[in-house]
């Protein structure tokens, strides 16, 4: 018969404890084994660049000479550049216009679509189709549509007897023209998100409002709007953060012109880094952009988290 002999100095309790510790160690090791690839990419491409970005803002970096500390010279250079103030003004103008169109149009479109009982699939597909186009293709397409000569818009306006516009060729209308493109390209996702949210409003609320004698507008104002308040707020924050970073449309369609009327913050940042070869000032600009947008994105993350818990 086989007998198991315990070593005299180990009692069962410590043995169990030891196994448990061994388990814990093993668990932790395999957990970090599964985590290690993610830790490496986050460290290299998120955490380290955050620190590096702050450092670069106070250095002179051109990849020719060794990097040197310059204190706040980069910021001084930015604030002395007339393009810098202009870029911020243009960007805020773009965001403002994009909110007027990109915020109101999808909301009312969603409310309208929610009332229609026919061709629902068609409406959803049509409004979302532009979202699936690569932004560069959208921008090149609209640049051609806007052509004051044989472009689509002036041809269409001419066909109904209206005078054409200068669109991208005039500093008065260039920014507005870019806003149309961006609204057309992006309103699909916003509309469908509102539409999904509208579907969750309990019908009894409308019935009750109706019994109280509320007409369509008052129901919209006192039932629909408050019920969507959260989604609207989240989308508002998201849109502010996204539109303040506009780059593809001005880069592809106008190159910042005419007369610098469409130079945006990101376009100027791109120029500082990749045209003027001044990575320090470009980083300083990123830092300022982060400070300007940090409030909005932090609120967004906090809001969505609160709903989670």
């Amino acid at each position, binding site marked *: 018969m086989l007998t198991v002999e315990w070593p005299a100095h180990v009692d069962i309790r410590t043995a169990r404890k030891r196994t448990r510790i061994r388990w814990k160690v093993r668990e*932790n090791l395999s*957990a970090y084994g*599964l*985590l290690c*690839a*993610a*830790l490496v*990419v*986050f460290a*290299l*491409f*998120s955490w*380290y*660049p*955050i620190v590096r*970005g702050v450092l670069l803002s106070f250095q002179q*970096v051109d990849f020719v000479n060794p990097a040197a500390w310059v204190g706040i010279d980069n910021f001084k250079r930015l604030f002395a550049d007339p393009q810098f103030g202009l870029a911020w003004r243009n960007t805020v103008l773009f965001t403002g216009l994009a909110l007027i169109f990109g915020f109101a149009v999808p909301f009312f479109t969603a409310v*309208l679509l929610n*009332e229609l009982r026919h*061709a629902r699939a*068609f409406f*959803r597909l*049509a409004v*979302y*189709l532009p979202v699936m186009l*690569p*932004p*560069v*293709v959208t921008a*090149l*397409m609209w640049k*051609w549509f806007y052509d004051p000569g*044989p472009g689509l818009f002036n*041809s269409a306006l001419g*066909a109904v007897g209206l005078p054409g516009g200068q669109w991208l060729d005039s500093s008065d209308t260039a920014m507005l023209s870019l806003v149309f493109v961006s609204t*057309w390209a992006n309103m699909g*996702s916003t509309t*469908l*998100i509102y539409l999904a949210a509208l*579907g969750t409003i309990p019908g*009894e609320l409308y*019935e009750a409002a109706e019994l109280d004698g509320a007409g*369509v507008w008052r*129901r*919209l104002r006192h039932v629909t709007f408050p019920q969507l308040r959260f989604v609207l707020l989240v989308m508002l924050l998201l849109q502010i*953060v996204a539109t303040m*970073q506009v*780059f*593809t449309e001005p*880069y*592809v369609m106008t190159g910042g012109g005419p007369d610098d009327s469409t130079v945006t913050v990101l376009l100027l*940042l791109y120029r500082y880094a990749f045209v003027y070869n001044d990575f320090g000032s470009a*980083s300083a600009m*990123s830092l300022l952009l*982060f400070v300007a*947008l*940090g409030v909005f*994105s932090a609120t967004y*993350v906090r809001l969505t988290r609160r709903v*989670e818990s």
Partner: protein
Amino acid sequence: MRTLIAPGALRTRRGKLVYGVVLGCTLAVFTLAFLFPLYWTVTGAMKSPQELAQTPATLVPREWHPETFAEAWDQLDLGKYFLNTLVVAGGAWLAQLAIDVPAAFALSKLRPKFGNVVLGLMLATLMLPATALLVPTYVTVTDLPLFHLNLINSPAAIWLPAAANAFNIYLLKRFFDQIPDELIEAARIDGASPVRTLWRIILPISRPILAVVSILAIVAAWKDFIWPLLVFPDTGKQTLSVMLQRVAIDMPLNVLVAGMVLASLPMVLLFGVFQRQILAGLTAGSLKG
């Protein structure tokens, strides 16, 4: 389902009339606003260069030149750029799945020491506007710390930063959190290693969230412009978007437009096939982000 307008109001003769007019107008506006530009582009590609330069433009091409698509394929070397884009998007997708899924599983189910700190540090990056890291990440990619590699002109410059995606971690972890712990316990008692548990138990029941993450990853990689513009100075390595933007000024308009149509086709077809998943991913992606 009861909505803003009372069902009773729609049953009256007046209500039916108003509904019909509104429906008709909406159909017309949607067709004009979203489908007509696409019609214009596709037919524009088939017009002759002379016809394209004509003012005012023609609604229907006078002569059809479908061979422009073949010309565009050759002149723009589209085969190569499709392959480049496919490698970039496919690699970014695989990297995100291979790196983010195990990480989210470890954080959700194995809960190691300091797991919450790691999760917090990852989610904190969500608060950064996407472009705030553009310059420092570019500088990092030109000379990777510790490894001293230059990733410029290599698709890895897209793949690896794409995997550092806190939003994926968040979506996946939230899904894994809902899987009962008993399932993991049972697997452990049966002697399954964590990797085996992930592969054989978690992944098969996580198909919906894997589909959402996959679609978000592929669509984002296909649409991305600014980052590929920075990391592919070598024109032969560029993606479709970067190449189209580069050649836009020099190419004859009909060839360029045909190239744009061809470059858009894969995503439009993908949307046609995976419509439901894409729209589900959209709501998951933005509402609860």
